């Protein structure tokens, strides 16, 4: 099994886990965590798909770097909103 396949499976697993939790949890922090896990899973999929032993594909890497910084900004904003409404999504 190549590294590419292993990390492809792992990325798909992370996306699945994150979606399951996003669908079943009502807790703000857990939902934000699930969103972060989802982003990591997608990043893993992109990198595994761009994997080629001969060359490095810099474009997905640049997208992911941008994505990581945007995600932390989104996380901070969501958590500030979550603190404001008191932590319950379902009410």
């Amino acid at each position: 099994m190549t590294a590419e396949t292993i990390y492809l499976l792992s990325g798909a697993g992370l996306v699945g886990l994150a979606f399951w939790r996003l669908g079943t949890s009502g807790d703000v922090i857990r939902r934000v965590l699930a969103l972060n896990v989802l982003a990591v899973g997608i990043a893993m999929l992109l990198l595994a798909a761009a994997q080629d032993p001969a060359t490095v594909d810099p474009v997905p890497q640049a997208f992911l770097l941008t994505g990581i910084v945007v995600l932390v900004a989104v996380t901070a904003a969501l958590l500030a909103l979550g603190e404001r409404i008191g932590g319950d999504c379902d009410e």
Partner: protein
Amino acid sequence: MSTAFDILVALGGLACAGIALVAGNRIGSVAAFVIMGFFVALAWVRLGAPDVALAEAAIGAGLTGALLLRSANRLGPVREAGVPIAVHGIAACLSLALAGGIVWAFATGTAEAVYPSLVAARVGESGVSNPVTAVLLNFRAWDTLLEVAVLVVALLLVSGLAPVRIAPAPPSELVLPFLRIVVPVAVLLAGHLLWKGATAPGGAFQAAALLTGGGLALALCGLLGAGRRTGHVLVLAGLGGLALFLAAALGAAILTGGLLDYPAGSAKVWIIAIESALTLSIAAMLVSLFLGPSEGVRDDR
């Protein structure tokens, strides 16, 4: 050998993600998330993406973990309304189907890699030799400009919400000697990463993440000054980075006729100037996002 390592890293990441999403204890769940970040960073080094791995370890695991811990402390224990077992089952089935579909799509899709040859052909003109930095600050600098704008929007939102400001406990005796070593090292490493980013893995984001770590260490020990002035300086530094990037975009447009199309021959100077400003500005914005608006803003309400 390396296959066994890959499998261990992949399973470790999945297991930590599972713990992070299921654990009833908030601190345990955030700790598992941070450890997942380090497994994932290792995986990305194995996938040939050290730039992304550095950013994930510093921002994805470090800073996001700190943000989550801060909010966990404010929101208290997990409050889960019991979801019917049927909903769990349906969600699990749908997620499994999605994961299976993703694996099938990625395993059977055969797309030609378009970008590597295009980037390799033009990287000589970009002014830097690290292809990732070339894409971020030259070929697709427009994306990076908008990303900084997203940070500014998030900062404005957080300022508007005016969350409770962190009240740091007075540092104990061992903290100050520790800070005297860690903070200067963080600043030095940030400068190193920023400069090396032109030719090797590193760059503005990774350097900014390190500076943020140093800034948060100072702030959490009450040494950064919680007053109105520090908050204003941080916000101004954040806005200044975006302003400078915009000015560079317009300046380049006037000089060459293309937005963010740097004059031939001096691209490296432009990139280093923009990256330096971005490092300071992103670090300032990330620290402000963590700390919340300054005291002055709250007093005015």
